[in-house]
């Protein structure tokens, strides 16, 4: 697969109240964005167990996006703040274990930010294209 026609596959874990609704708004507003993202809806970014992200990464997902409400806006008061700490820990572990932690993104996108959601997917798709396929895709022994 050459770099030009490589289409990254991005798994997005989005919170029900903000980013998922933002994605919905992008759709109802008919905003165009790359079809490289597979969305999984959770109630809160704080409900994203690191094991989900790890499983996706080890299975060969090219990018993993966690989307939540802006700091201060969490529907459950503080889920996104806790998600942020978990992502910091997860990225540190990935880096120290020799994996590419830059495939994991955390972004705050509110329910009204359909445009930001579309922009984020565009930006992430381009970045993952630049990064190339996740090498774990080809490694059977992990």
């Amino acid at each position, binding site marked *: 697969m050459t770099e030009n026609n490589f289409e990254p596959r991005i798994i997005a874990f989005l919170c029900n109240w903000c980013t998922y609704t933002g994605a919905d708004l992008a759709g109802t507003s008919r905003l165009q964005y790359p079809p490289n993202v597979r969305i999984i809806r959770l109630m809160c970014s704080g409900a994203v167990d*690191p*094991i989900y992200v*790890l*499983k996706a990464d*080890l*299975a*060969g997902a090219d990018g993993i996006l966690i989307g*939540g409400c802006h*700091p*201060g806006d969490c529907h459950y008061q*503080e889920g*996104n*703040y*806790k*998600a*942020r*700490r*978990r*992502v*910091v*820990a*997860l*990225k*540190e*572990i*990935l880096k*120290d*274990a*020799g*994996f590419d932690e830059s495939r994991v993104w*955390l*972004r*705050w996108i509110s329910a009204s930010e359909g445009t930001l959601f579309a922009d984020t997917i565009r930006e992430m798709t381009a970045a993952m294209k630049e990064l190339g396929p996740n090498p774990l*895709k*080809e*490694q*059977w*022994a*992990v």
Partner: protein
Amino acid sequence: METIITVENGNTLAALQGFLKQLLEHGIVDAIVAPLRTPSGTVTPALVTRSELLNAADPLAPVLTGNSATLAGKLSVREPRARVGVVLRSCEIRALVELVKMQQASLDSLTLIALDCAGTYHVPVFQEMAQKGEALWQNLYKNAAEQPEQSDENLRAACKICEQPVYENAPIKIKLLGSDLNQEIHLELPDELGAQLEYSPATENGRQNVVEKIITARTTARDAAFTEIRARLEGEEGVAGVFAACIRCHNCMNVCPICYCKTCVFKSQVFDHEPMQFVEWAKQKGAYRLPSDTMLFHLTRLNHMGLSCVGCGMCTEVCPVELPVGMVFRAIGQRLQATFEYAPGRNIDEQLPLITFKADEWTEVGE
């Protein structure tokens, strides 16, 4: 208060047993957890209520059959509970402090008796040496004090790089380092307890100096070991290579004092997929490693307990395929803990990093 137990006829162990017996006989505690010699000569932790059975107590035996923080947790986690004195090494106390934070133990009913540790041996190594009648702890404490940079080759890998041989924040400390143990044992007790047991105050010995020398030597050894394992993790071999032989027996998880979950996801049916699902995955990569999800297991465990890892090395101890589990976890744990400026076991009042937060931190991580 600092005090001294006099060792008579060079019998250090009897002097130590005498002190533990006093705690029972004076009703300071209802029971004591300490390593006991079994009739067959091995050592195992036991909960002792009858003081004469403390004649079998051998806290000096340089072996760690398990991290007893788990046992202390089981004895204190809920009411009603007895007042139990627990003789523990530094790594065990630090694990216990983490368990308290995780609400799996309580210090309300426990009296911590911290033992200065010069290192421990792998159980079979210990038993072989003990059978030969070698003066195990005598040599160990002497060498640790006199030439700490020359580590005993037979010590467990975790002990060779342990830079926390003593735990200072315990109410009772058995200060084995820095004294001639054939003559005396230095103790530190709460003043009230010292008065009750009729001990007289003594001046401190050269322990601090000895401890500092050990810490310096072990830190050097630790950094060298970290450099070695990190080169493997970050190099061609990678973490998958380091853990390639893993059979996912879960031994490392079972002995880990921090891994307490009653319903661990890796013991659940989550990974019992439909037969055809495995085939689908095999098709994706051409082959699918079985048992599956070994990498996921270790990385998830790192996420769960890496911040609280005290480096006791029990995981390495029980690995049937001799993977350097503890070394990997400590090396990664060190950076993880540094990120959150957290030291597991240091202070009961420090919150676990993942249950708290500040509003204005790591703003660059979420944009």
